[in-house]
């Protein structure tokens, strides 16, 4: 059954990364806020949930919700100094924030166990279902993805979503229409944080073990690759991108079995492809595989 198990693992990871990519897509695709440190939110969700459950003995549901809230709060906090500034500043502050969260996880051993990571993270309902646990977890992830997809679609189809696109395309114009664009930016960072935190918490309880190694900047670049390839301002694009990039990323692991190339070089080659994919897509097909769906209104007569 190794192939079946591997397939279920792969599909569970599709789901986790789809959530993660949708969180970035909300900020980048809809609101035009460049976030190069999204992994910080993923890490915060993962660590908060894992530590509350492992060290404080709280129920897993509480851990996951706390992880989401911690991440969402961090989004607000990070948006505060940059909310009135251009996107370049968002890019650099989020990149830096991602590194600071990782440094914290690495250095504060009393809390996070530093480089050793948090072990034996409990899984939901693990005593009740044992034989087909991975299938159960996959279905759980699938339901979460479906719910988040629906909620985000409702959000982006609402007036709030139109406000986001207005900020992305013409911030001054939407300001002149009396929109409080700074407040909206803080809100969108918080919502993106909630979703990324949820993805992180689900990841932690799936992997059972997390360490700062799981939250390298590489993760941020991977989900950037996902939304650029899949298509921005389109949640289906984010999900498609997660499937495409994750399949490529995981399947190249097996190339090592046939080609004599070290794992370090293999992962370098893999990231070169992802970097070049990002560049080529932005040049030759900037909208990604799935286009943004633009609502058209009938001309007034």
């Amino acid at each position, binding site marked *: 059954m190794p192939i079946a198990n591997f397939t279920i693992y792969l599909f569970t990871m599709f789901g986790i990364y789809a959530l993660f990519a949708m969180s970035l897509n909300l900020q980048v695709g809809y609101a*035009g806020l*460049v976030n*190069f440190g999204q992994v910080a939110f993923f890490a915060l969700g993962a660590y908060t949930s894992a530590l509350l459950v492992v060290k404080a003995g709280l129920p897993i549901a509480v851990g996951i919700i706390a992880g989401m809230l911690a991440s969402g709060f961090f989004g607000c906090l990070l948006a505060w*100094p*940059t909310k009135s*500034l251009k*996107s*370049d*500043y968002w*890019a*650099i*502050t989020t*990149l*830096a*924030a991602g*590194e*600071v969260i990782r*440094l914290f996880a*690495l*250095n504060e051993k009393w809390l996070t166990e530093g480089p050793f990571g948090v072990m034996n993270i409990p899984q939901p309902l693990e005593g009740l279902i044992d034989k087909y646990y991975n299938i159960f977890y996959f279905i759980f992830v699938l339901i979460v993805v479906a719910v988040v997809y629906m909620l985000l679609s409702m959000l982006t189809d609402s007036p709030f979503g139109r406000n986001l696109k207005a900020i992305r395309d013409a911030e001054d114009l939407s300001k002149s229409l009396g929109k409080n664009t700074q407040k909206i930016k803080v809100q969108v960072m918080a919502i993106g944080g909630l979703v990324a935190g949820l993805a992180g918490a689900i990841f932690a309880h799936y992997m059972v073990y997390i360490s700062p190694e799981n939250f390298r*900047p590489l993760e941020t*670049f991977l989900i*950037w690759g996902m939304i*650029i390839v899949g298509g921005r301002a389109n949640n289906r694009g984010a999900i498609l991108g997660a499937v495409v990039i994750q399949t490529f990323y995981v399947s190249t692991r097996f190339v090592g079995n046939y080609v004599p190339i070290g794992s*370090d*070089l293999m992962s*370098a*080659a893999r*990231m*070169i492809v*992802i*970097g*070049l*994919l*990002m*560049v080529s897509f*932005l*040049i030759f097909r*900037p909208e990604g595989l799935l286009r943004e769906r633009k609502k058209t209104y009938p001309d007034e007569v």
Partner: protein
Amino acid sequence: MEISQIIVNSLIRGAELSLLAIGLTMVYDILGFANFAHTEFAAFGAFLGFTFNSLLGINLLLSVVLAALLTGLIGILLDLSIFEKLRARNAKTLTMMIITMGMGIAIRNISRLIWTSSTKNFPMPLLQPLKILGARITRVQLGILFIAAISMVAFHLLLHHTKFGKALRAISDNKELARASAIDSAKMVQWMWFVAYSYAVIGGTMLAIEHLLYPRLGFDIIIPVFCAAILGGIGNPYGAVLGALTLGFAENVIISLDFGPLFSLGGLFDVGSLQLSTGYKPAISFMILILVLLIKPTGILGEN
């Protein structure tokens, strides 16, 4: 730590960061986007220099010059093949910035593929450090300061006493007017990439000589270099130098400060000596960056 030692360390750090920040700020000024691949090219160039020096046995200075020229050429080629087309298409500066991020990932991993992840040391003669007013400084560090100073003067002369510099400043002031005055801005932009990347390679090599050379070097210095450029006022090369020196001092002072007395509230609590753990050294530039953005996002030399 001796005050003179703090000054020496800060000057060296500031000198290295300035050479990197100049190019970043120039590209931002002329083309309007933040180049997230900037420091990656610096590391790539440092690897080229290392290869010329230690594998081909070319003299160190000549190796660095060759690496700087080569990386500058790559900058021109990338402008011709990618950025010029995007400019012609009126692509958003946001798109260009994200492209540089993708490019940075590719370059960093190309270095990893060619030179592997293992750290490398520039072969340097081991000599007794000199003592100046109680501060220890190696001959290599003196060389770094000397070359950085020459590079700065050369940059100033380039900007003010050459046709390229005048044209560049004209484009920076007013693009339309520069075009109306028959300035070939496409050509000037290519030269600008050349200068930006050449300077970045000199700075990157200095950092690699003083510490270590590894593929992630470019990523590890991206935040301090951006911080220096923003602190000085983004778009202003003199501001970038000022910002780099300020950041160099801030980093070294904060690392050597004892926060114990501050938290003991005048001897009320006994907290002993309390220094910032060196594990957090990379976070200092982030904190300074946030402070600058909160207080004066236009930087020291920026207009309000």
